[in-house]
């Protein structure tokens, strides 16, 4: 199915991009499915930015959006073209880390503006997008995106870092195709950006999980 609705972490926060041409009913439907699949995972009170350059909404459509978002404890606001936004990310206070106390299964997704700590695994097909760092107490086998709003100093730490894809800010690294040839170390590892590329090294900071 074609995606008419895309959530995107950008330098200025969580953005919602709507297709310019798709039927609004379809958009609401797809949006609902996205919100449903990520229930509880959008932080409450989070403000989603909808660039108006993308699509002009009628008052009625705006109301539909507002009430749908409200069902999930979210708000939205219109912004101008995202690329020329003058908002400073640093001006917003850093939110408290979000702590998830379960394993993320395939198809589940977390989006959060701050750091995310997961007490469990991130399984294949699951996705974590965080404005800050990501720390996973178990295995990371899915997709992790730290520093999603552009913070290149963000890191991803997991007891077993075997993610299919790691993203930090705008840099993407994928797992090697011949994973079987690699011996998985039994120590906690951290991914960070060095010289413009994602590198993985033994974790400096020992996170302790109970």
């Amino acid at each position: 199915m074609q995606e008419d609705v895309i959530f995107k972490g950008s330098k200025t926060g969580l953005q919602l991009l709507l297709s310019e041409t798709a039927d609004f009913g379809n958009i609401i439907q797809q949006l609902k499915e996205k919100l449903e699949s990520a229930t509880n995972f959008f932080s409450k009170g989070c403000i989603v930015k909808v660039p108006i350059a993308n699509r002009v909404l009628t008052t009625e459509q705006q109301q539909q959006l507002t009430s749908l978002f409200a069902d999930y404890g979210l708000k939205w606001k219109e912004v101008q073209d995202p690329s020329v936004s003058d908002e400073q990310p640093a001006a917003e206070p850093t939110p408290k880390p979000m702590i998830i106390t379960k394993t993320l299964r395939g198809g589940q997704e977390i989006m959060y503006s701050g750091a995310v700590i997961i007490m469990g695994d991130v399984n294949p097909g699951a996705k974590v997008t965080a404005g800050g760092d990501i720390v996973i107490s178990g295995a990371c086998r899915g997709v992790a995106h730290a520093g999603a709003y552009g913070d290149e100093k963000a890191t991803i730490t997991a007891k077993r870092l075997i993610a299919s894809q790691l993203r930090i800010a705008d840099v993407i690294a994928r797992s090697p195709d011949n994973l079987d040839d690699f011996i998985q170390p039994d120590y906690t590892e951290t991914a960070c950006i060095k010289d413009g590329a994602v590198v993985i090294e033994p974790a400096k900071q020992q996170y302790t999980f109970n």
Partner: protein
Amino acid sequence: MGEVIVITSGKGGVGKTTTTANLGTGFALLGKKVVLVDADIGLRNLDVVMGLENRIVYDLVDVTEGNCRLKQALIRDKRYESLYLLPAAQTRDKNAVNPDQMKVLCSDLAEEFDYVIIDCPAGIEQGFKNAIAGADRAIIVTTPEVSAVRDADRIIGLLESEGKHDPKLVVNRIRPHMVKKGDMMNIDDIIEILAIDLLGIIPEDEYIVISTNRGEPAVVSPVALASIAYKNIVRRLLGENVPLMTIESNEGFFYKLKKVFGF
């Protein structure tokens, strides 16, 4: 009140219908009152596997739409007095029923039966939502293949978000010689990813195919490997402590499997 168990998987063709038929018949062999519910509306199979196709008059949708009483739609098994089937409608689709109706249906059945076992359709859409709606617990069936395990994981997540926790796992179609050569996922790898309790392992067994074509579940056989494996699962569900054929410490899974199955 009886217990409502849904047999689900995500991926198609991994053995949900086979497992429903065998567990249900296995319970009936021990004298339990059981009803099998075919929730795969539009693609019904369970009646064929049970050899009851020619007795269908009313179906699940007739019940939910009020065209007949629940009792009228229940088909008594040929072999076992305490075993019944509620067949799916073949000419309708998944949207002919909704989760609320399924909840009512399941609780009505649970009044009458010790076990209500629901055969879930493949997929994660309406049919899945209907099948799990009234279930107290879930059994996830997978095969030792990466794609089936991925789908099982997704299903576990969806069950969780519906407030259904602690599903149990059945790994079907294990081929010991392939696992041994490393050509198939082993049980440990599967459990590590899914992180749920293993309820049992069913070997690949051509007797399943033979019995399916005959319309008589394999569990009726006193000797077939798959029959023994299904009987073990039934006993575990009844709370008996039947040792799992898994790995403990140094002893490999194959070794155990060999010992138990006599390979």
